[in-house]
């Protein structure tokens, strides 16, 4: 009995010991992760070469652990000592100096190395599989349905008319009223007249639509030299529009970003791992291959420092075109007018391929100028319009005194009222 008890005690002790050890180990790797992200992650990744080499298998590459520790603390000393692997590595990375970490302890280095080992093993165990999320939305178009319905109804009406005339003929025969020979429907004058009217209307609508559409290209969605998805950049990754289209705040042009702006991020991001992307035809697009196209334009080889002078401009296809006789200025609308980009360009953060959202017709411009209220508040641009400021104050004070809501005309000043529909504002 006593023997059994002591055995049970040993067993429990063993379990506890094992659990404590296990916890200790995982705690080591956990610390390692924090230390890695604090000290190493800005230049190193486990499985990818960044500013410095990929660290997976680093312990196999440095056979002597003491030298590795020394290297991590003070790499310059190791290079000076002439250790061949260190010198080679230094030259291979264009003599980019690694930061010195004199204060880091052996225990911390071990924790980091343990983390690198587990992270490398994890990455090997799970080969990168694409997320199965199918982002394709099947939004049906109702036009065809309505067309078919109309056609069916028309045929039914036609059949009923035929039945009606046949029945009339039968009843006439019965009553003995002489009826003339029935006219086949394609020679029936009322049918021909009806058809002519319908065709005239359809033709008229088509011609008017076509004529209005001349010189306008709403929904224009050209293929670009690189499949650049605004959905991935501005939507998923929340990059501000003005990050790339810097000029929209300062002048007429919103500016197409230079290759340099692309490479700000894509020097490091060389593969696409987000949800699947599709082009207008519904075919899947390989994001990583598109990034390779960018590298071709930039003259960049991953792993080597980028020489920006080798870059060639990317010839994007322009989508929004205004005729030369119209003046449009981006900063006037974005800064002074405080308009959102989406007002005219549509929901760009949801578009894989950008298409022209607005018709960009004069009627469209004028309509917006008639209905949009000028934002006078905290807007230096309109501070000189004292007359309107006073009028607004007077109106709101009056409404307050009468205890009434401001009427729609008095609640604000539209762009039209400050001259936003004068011809020479845009045509000169």
């Amino acid at each position, binding site marked *: 009995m006593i023997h059994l008890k002591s055995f049970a005690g040993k067993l429990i002790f063993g379990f506890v010991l094992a659990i404590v050890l296990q916890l200790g180990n995982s705690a080591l790797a956990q610390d390692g992760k924090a230390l890695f*992200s604090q000290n190493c*992650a*800005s*230049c*190193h*990744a486990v499985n990818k070469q*960044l*500013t410095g080499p990929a660290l997976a298998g680093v312990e196999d590459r440095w056979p002597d652990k003491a030298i590795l520790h020394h290297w991590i603390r003070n790499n310059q000393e190791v290079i000076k000592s002439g250790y061949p692997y260190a010198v080679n590595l230094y030259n291979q990375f*264009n*003599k*980019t*100096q690694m*930061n010195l970490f004199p204060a880091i302890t052996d225990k911390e280095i071990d924790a980091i190395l343990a983390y690198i080992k587990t992270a490398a093993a994890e990455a090997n165990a799970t080969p990168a599989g694409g997320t199965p999320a199918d982002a394709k939305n099947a939004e049906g*178009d109702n*036009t*065809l349905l309505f*067309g078919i319905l109309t056609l069916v109804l028309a045929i039914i009406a036609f059949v009923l008319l035929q039945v009606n005339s046949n029945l009339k003929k039968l009843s006439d025969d019965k009553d003995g009223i002489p009826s003339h020979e029935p006219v086949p429907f*394609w020679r029936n004058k009322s049918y021909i007249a009806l*058809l002519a009217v319908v*065709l005239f209307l359809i033709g008229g609508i*088509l011609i008017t639509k076509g*004529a209005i*559409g*001349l*010189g*306008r*290209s709403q*929904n*224009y*969605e*050209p*293929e670009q030299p690189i499949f650049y998805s605004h959905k991935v950049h501005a939507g998923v*990754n*929340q*990059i*501000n529009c003005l*990050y790339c289209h*810097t000029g929209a705040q300062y002048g*007429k*042009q919103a500016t*197409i970003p230079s290759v*340099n*702006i692309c490479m*700000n*991020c894509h*020097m*490091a*991001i060389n593969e*696409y*791992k*987000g949800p699947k992307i599709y082009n*207008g*035809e519904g075919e899947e697009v390989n994001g990583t291959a598109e990034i390779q196209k960018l590298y071709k334009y930039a003259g960049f080889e991953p792993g080597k420092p980028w020489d*920006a002078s080798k870059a060639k401009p990317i010839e994007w296809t*322009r989508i929004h*075109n205004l*005729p*030369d*006789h119209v003046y449009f200025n981006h900063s006037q609308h974005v800064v002074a007018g405080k308009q959102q980009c989406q007002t005219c360009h549509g929901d760009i953060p949801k578009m894989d391929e950008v*298409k022209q959202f607005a018709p960009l017709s004069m009627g469209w411009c004028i309509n917006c100028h008639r209905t949009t209220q000028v934002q006078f508040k905290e807007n230096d641009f309109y501070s000189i319009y004292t007359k309107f400021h006073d009028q607004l104050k007077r109106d709101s004070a009056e409404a307050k005194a009468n205890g009434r809501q401001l009427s729609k005309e008095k609640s604000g000043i539209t762009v039209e009222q400050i001259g936003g529909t004068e011809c020479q504002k845009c045509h000169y």
Partner: protein
Amino acid sequence: MKKISIIIAVFAAGIALVSCGDGLKRKPGTVYMPDMGDSRAYETYADHSILEKKGIFYNNKPVAGTIARGEEMPFLLTKDLPGDTANYVASKQVANPVTSLNAKETAEAERLYLVNCGICHGAKLDGNGPLYKDGKGPFPAKPATLVGDAKYEAMPDGQMFYSVTYGKNLMGSYASQLSRKQRWAVIHYIKSKQSAGKAPSAPAAAADSSATAKK
């Protein structure tokens, strides 16, 4: 019977015409008499190669050494060659010409920071912007922790300016997105955030130590 088929064909053609209006539009469409439609002068992004072929010099850059009105003086240090850090080290001596910002200028510097820097370095300057997200974002390297990391809090303004202008390691050059004045203003904003981050934490630490002392 023949006539019925003609009528049906006309209808089918009409429906086909109407339904073709929607769908993918890869071509811009037709223009009727593009009078005053295209600019006679060279516009932004127009192809200038024809001028070059004719031997006409055209360069759409300002003359070298031009300083825009209201712009800061040029930064005289050039970009280091790969493997060299002489100018990066020398940049420590360059002082920030923007010594103070009023409330409005601070708001503008903050906006510029959020548009251009926050995407990686985080809206809270913690080096954890939407592109990194603790390693879950697409950017593989951890961006610098601007507030809370002694290395970047001790980094002089001039060296920051060097990095923002020419890029450093995996960070690219922001010279095309921010003017010199804006770059200095953003650095001033970062420095003020760093000192603001330090100021409240110091008394808190003191309070902590006094609390433990009482125990």
